[in-house]
């Protein structure tokens, strides 16, 4: 450990882990690593966007007819919830940076809570869709070609997003607990902030694709 790192730890800051010389270096590395990971995540979700584009172009009629069946209220309210959680996450990272422990842990706890609220609302949405048989299979109500593919994509996209969010809620809740006593300059925190914001940006693309299509008169 370098002299800088000793001084930082002595003042109640984090100690860097090997091989980093100081916390700042470790934070930068974690941020860089997270962006690399998010690049692979973008390609992962990008495959779904691509499948969506191809099916939409090849079966426009059934696609739009199916898309009208999604509930815009659930989608819109959840978008607002997610935007608010993104605000809380940004405040948590900056709060920790400016040395405000109370802001940091409260904002993190709010982020996790809002993530959980999103999942609960989405649960109601899923149950409504299942009640209306909007699941590809023999009971599917729309007979147009491409309609079932839309709902296949709907389920894959929303469930994969929900899994990402569940992981996020667990990680952020853990950080909220840590933040009540641990040093404020936890090197991984900005990186997990990036993960949370990424999950929000994926939802920003999902929202028009799943909830806004085919609403115009």
């Amino acid at each position: 450990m370098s002299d800088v790192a000793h001084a930082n730890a002595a003042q109640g800051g984090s100690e860097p882990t090997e091989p980093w010389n100081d916390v700042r270096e470790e934070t930068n590395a974690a941020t860089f690593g997270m962006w690399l990971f998010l690049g692979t995540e973008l390609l992962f979700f990008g495959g779904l966007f691509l499948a969506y584009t191809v099916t939409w172009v090849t079966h426009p009629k059934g696609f739009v007819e199916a898309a009208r069946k999604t509930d815009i209220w659930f989608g819109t309210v959840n978008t607002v919830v997610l935007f608010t959680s993104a605000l809380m996450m940004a405040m948590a990272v900056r709060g920790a940076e400016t040395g405000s422990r109370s802001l940091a842990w409260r904002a993190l706890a709010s982020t996790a809570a809002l993530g959980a609220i999103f999942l609960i609302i989405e649960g109601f949405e899923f149950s409504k869709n299942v009640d209306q048989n909007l699941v590809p299979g023999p009971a599917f109500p729309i007979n147009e070609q491409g309609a079932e593919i839309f709902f296949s994509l709907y389920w894959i996209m929303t469930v994969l997003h929900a899994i990402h969010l569940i992981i996020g809620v667990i990680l952020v809740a853990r950080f909220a607990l840590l933040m009540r006593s641990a040093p404020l300059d936890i090197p991984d925190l900005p990186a997990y902030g990036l993960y949370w914001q990424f999950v929000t940006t994926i939802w920003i693309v999902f929202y028009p694709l799943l909830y806004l299509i085919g609403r115009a008169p």
Partner: protein
Amino acid sequence: MSNGGSPNIRALWLRNGAVWLALLLLLALSVGLAYSPLGGLNLAANLSIAAIMIGVVMFYFMELRRDSPLVRLTALGGVLWLLIMFWLTLNDYFTRLS
């Protein structure tokens, strides 16, 4: 050490709150445009707004405006690979459609 009431924190709330408000206004605009008769351009309009929202989140909430050129390049790199994937696949599908 500053706490919840310091001017520093207040400025943070004001700035990030303004970003949040901008996102909500863009969302409202998006919904409004989705229900407007735009003659088939609705999805294009909505995706354009989505692109602006993503830009806002990346620039302000993900702090790309403060990051080093290396990190910005990495973020752009992901988009580049995505474009290559779309470009190659759609080249194939769209030339075989008719």
